[in-house]
C-alpha cells in the first residue's frame, strides 16, 4: 500500500516538475507546479510529516501559487518565442542536469549511511504533529522562528516598494558637460578606464556618447551604448 502510494505520489511530483519546465505557457507551468506541490505533500505525509504537508498545501499550493497566478494574469502569459538566443545552452543544460543527477545517485548508492536503505526510525506517536513542531519552534528554534518572521516582513515591504507605481519617468540625471570634453590619452577616471564614459549609462542622447580618445585602443570596451534599452530609466 505504502509503495503504491509512494510511486503514485512520486510519479505525480516528477510529472509536475517536468510540466513546469516543459510547458511553454507560464500559466500552465504554474498549474503544473500546483499539482507537483500537492503530490509532494502526499510524499510528506508518507514520511509522517503531517504539519509540513499541511503547510505545503495551505501555504504553498494555496497562497503562494495564487500570487503566481495573479502575476501571470497581470503580466500576460506570453508563450516563449521559438527561436531565441542561447541555443547551445538548450542542449547543454539537460546534460549538466543529468550529470548532477547521476552524481547524486552514485552518492546515494555508495553512501555508508545505513539508514538510507531502512524505512526510517521506529515511529513514535506524535511525530510530526503540529503540537511537536510548535513546541520546538517556541523552545529550541525560537530564534530562527523570530528571524523568519522578520524576514517575511522585510520581503513584504520590499515587494511593495518594488511594485509601487511611480509617478511618471524620473528626470534625466544632469551630466556635467566637462566629462565629455575631449581629453588627452591616459588621463581620466576609472569609469573611462573600463571603457565607459561617466554617466554613459544614464543618457541616451547619441551626441553625448563621445568616447574618450584613450578608449579607442580597446575596442572591447566601446559597446556599452549599443546595448542600452530604448526607454530611459
Amino acid at each position, binding site marked *: 500500500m505504502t509503495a503504491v502510494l509512494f510511486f503514485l505520489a512520486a510519479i505525480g511530483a516528477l510529472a509536475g516538475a517536468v510540466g513546469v519546465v516543459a510547458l511553454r505557457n507560464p500559466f500552465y507551468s504554474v498549474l503544473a507546479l500546483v499539482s507537483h506541490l500537492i503530490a509532494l505533500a502526499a510524499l510528506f505525509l508518507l514520511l509522517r510529516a503531517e504539519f509540513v504537508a499541511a503547510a505545503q498545501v495551505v501555504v504553498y499550493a494555496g497562497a503562494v501559487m495564487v500570487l503566481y497566478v495573479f502575476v501571470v494574469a497581470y503580466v500576460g502569459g506570453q508563450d516563449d518565442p521559438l527561436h531565441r538566443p*542561447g541555443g547551445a*545552452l538548450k542542449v547543454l*543544460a539537460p546534460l549538466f542536469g543529468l550529470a548532477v543527477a547521476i552524481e547524486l545517485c552514485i552518492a546515494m548508492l555508495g553512501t555508508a549511511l545505513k539508514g538510507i536503505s531502512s524505512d526510517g526510525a521506529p515511529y513514535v506517536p506524535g511525530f510530526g504533529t503540529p503540537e511537536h513542531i510548535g513546541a520546538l519552534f517556541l523552545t529550541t528554534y525560537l530564534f530562527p522562528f523570530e528571524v523568519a518572521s522578520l524576514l517575511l516582513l522585510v520581503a513584504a515591504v520590499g515587494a511593495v516598494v518594488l511594485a509601487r507605481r511611480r509617478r511618471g519617468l524620473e528626470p534625466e540625471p544632469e551630466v556635467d558637460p566637462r566629462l565629455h570634453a575631449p581629453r588627452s*590619452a*591616459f588621463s581620466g577616471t576609472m569609469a573611462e*578606464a573600463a571603457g565607459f564614459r561617466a554617466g554613459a549609462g544614464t543618457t541616451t542622447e547619441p551626441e553625448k556618447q563621445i568616447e574618450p580618445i584613450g578608449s579607442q*585602443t*580597446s575596442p572591447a*570596451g566601446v559597446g556599452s551604448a549599443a546595448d542600452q534599452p530604448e526607454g530611459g530609466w
Partner: protein
Amino acid sequence: MSTTTFGWLVLLFPLLGMIIISLGFRRLPGTSAGWLGTLAIGLAFAAAVCALISILGQPDTHRELTSKLWDYDVSAGVDAQLSILVDPLSIFMALVVSGVSTLIFLYSIAYMKSDRGYNRYFAYLNYFVFSMLLLVLSGNFLLLIVGWAGVGAASYLLISFWYRRTTATSAGIKAFVINVFGDVGLVLGTFFIFRHTGTVDFQKAFAAAPHVFSHNSTDLVAGCLLLLVGAFAKSAQVPLHTWLPDAMEGPTPVSALIHAATMVTAGVYLIARMHPFFEIATTAADVGAIVGCVTLVVAATIAVVQTDLKRVIAYSTMSQIGYMIMGVSVGAYSAGLFHLMTHGFFKALLFMAAGSLISAMGGEQSLDRMSGFRKAMPFTFICFIIGGLALSGLPPFSGWLSKDDIIGYLDNRGGGFLILGIAGYFGAFMTGLYTFRMIFRAFWGEPCAEARELEDGHLVHHDVPTNPQTGEAEDTDVGFPGAEHHIAERDLSMRVPMSVLAVLAVIGGVLQIPGIDNALTNFLEPTFANSHLYHLEGSTGAEWAGLIIGAAIAVAGIAVAYRTWVLRPGTSAALQARFVRIHTFLYNKWYFDELQDALVVRPVQWLGRFTETVLERGVIAGGVTGGTVGVVRAASAAVRRAQTGFLRYYAAVVIVGLAGMALYFLISAS
C-alpha cells in the same frame, strides 16, 4: 642679564613684532602696525647695544659666547642645536642690521602710509630683519642655513610686495630662484666641511679646521667655493647678481633694507665668519677676491649709463659689496666690515633720499625726466649730497676712510693683490663719476615740471599711477602702491631717520682712523684672534698715502662728472654717439641677463620641454603608465567577456560548479 640673554632678546623682539602684526593685521588701525614694527626693531637694537656694553665688560679672551636653548638632535656624529654665538662680529652685525633697520622702519611709517598693504608690509619687514638677525647670530651651520633661507624668502615677499605689478612678481621670482641656487651652494659647502670636522657648531668646527684640513686641501677648497656660491648669490656678485637691479621693483624702503642693512651684506658676513676655512683654502679666498674685484668694476661701469635712479644706486651697491667681498676674502676683515657699516649708513641715506625724490616725481624713476630739484627739495638735496660724497669717498666722510682702508690693505699685501688694489682705485673713480652724474642730473639744470610744481608748494600726483618700468596703469584702489606720495620735506618720520643717517654718514668713519684710533679693529679682534692675516695692515704713513690717493681719485671722478653733466651738458650725448657700441654694451648690463638666459634658462627650458614631451609623454605616460593600463585593460577585457549578463548562462555556470564539486567529493571519498 648675561650677554647671551641679550643675544636671544635681539632675536625675540623682531619675531614677536612679526607675529603680533601678522596675527592682528586686520585689527591694527592706522599706522599702529608701523609703530609696533619700529618698536620691535628698536628694542632689538637696544638689546644689541646692551649686549655690546655687556661684552665690553668681559676680558678679551671671554668674548666668544655660545648659548643654546635646546638640542634638536645630538647623536652619533650630529650635534644640531638651537644655539647662538655672541661674539664681537655677531654683535657688530646685529648692531648694524637692527640700527639701520630701525631707521628704515621709521622712514617706512610715513612713506608707505597710503598703501593698502601697510600691515602686511610691516609683518614682512619684521620677518626680514628677524631672518637676518638669525643669520648673523646663529651659532652653527644649521641655523645659519635657516636664517639664510629665511632672508631669501623674505626678499621674495618684499620684492614682489606690489604683487599686481607683473614686473615685481617676476623680479621676486628671479631673486628667489637665484637665492635658492645660493642656498644649495651653502648647504653643499656646509656638508663638505661637516664631513671632515664632524660638527656643525661654528666654534668646534673652527677649532678643528687646522687639524683636519691641510693647506688648500681639495675638499675644503670645494666646500669654500660652494660657500662662496651662496655668498655671491646673496650678495649679488657676478655672475649671480642679476636679481639685485630687478629687486628695485619693491618699495623704496625695501630697497634700502636689502641694500644697506640686510641681505646683501650676508655674503660679506659669511666670508668673515668662515675666515678660518678661507685662510686655509687660499685658492677659494683668491676666487672670492677676484670675483669681488670683477663685480666692483662691472657694476660701476654699468651704473654710469643707467637712467633709472634706483638702478644706479643698486649697481653702486653691487660695486660697494664687491669691495667688501674683495676685502674680507684677502683678509682685510676689519676694513671690509668697516665698509659694510659705513656703506649701510650712506646707502640707506641715498635710498631714502631717492625715495623722497621719486615721490616728488609722482612715482617716476627715470633720470631723464628729473632735473633741477635743488631748490624744490633742499633737505633731500643735502642728504643726497652727503650720501653721494660718502659713497664717492671724499674726506672727511665715512666712505673715504672705509673704502681706502680696504684698498690700503691690498696695496700693503703687494704682488697680485696690487692689481686688485688698482682695480679698486678705478672703481673709486667710476663711483665718483656715476654718483655725481646721478646727483647732477637730478638736482642741477633747469627745474622740470614736477620741480616747479613743488617750488609752488604742490606735490605732483599723476592722474593715473603707472608702473615706471612698463607704463602699465596701476590699480591703487586695490592698493599697490599707495595712491599718495610722501616726501621728506613734509614728513617728520622720514626726515628724522635721514638726518640721523646723514650724521652717521659724515662721522661714521671715526671708528677707524689710521694712526689715531683703531676702535673697530680692536673690538673685532677676539673673533679674528686665530687669523694670521688680521694684522697685516700697512704702516700709518702708507695708509694715509692711500687715503690721499683715494680722495684725489674720487675728486677726479666728481670733477669729470661736473664737467660732463653741468659745465657742458651736451658732452654725454656726444660721448654716447661716439662710443655707441660701448654704450649699448654697458646699457644692456654687459648682457649678463642674456648670458644667463642662454646658459641656464634656455637649456633648462629645453630640458623641461624634452622631459615633458619625450620622457613624460613617451616613457612615463606611454610606456610605464600606458603599458600598465594596457595590460590591465587587456586582462579586464578578457575577464569581462565572461560577464555576459545572461542570467541563464550564470545559472549554468553555477550548476557546472556544483557538478564539479560533487565530482570532487565523490572521487575523494572513493
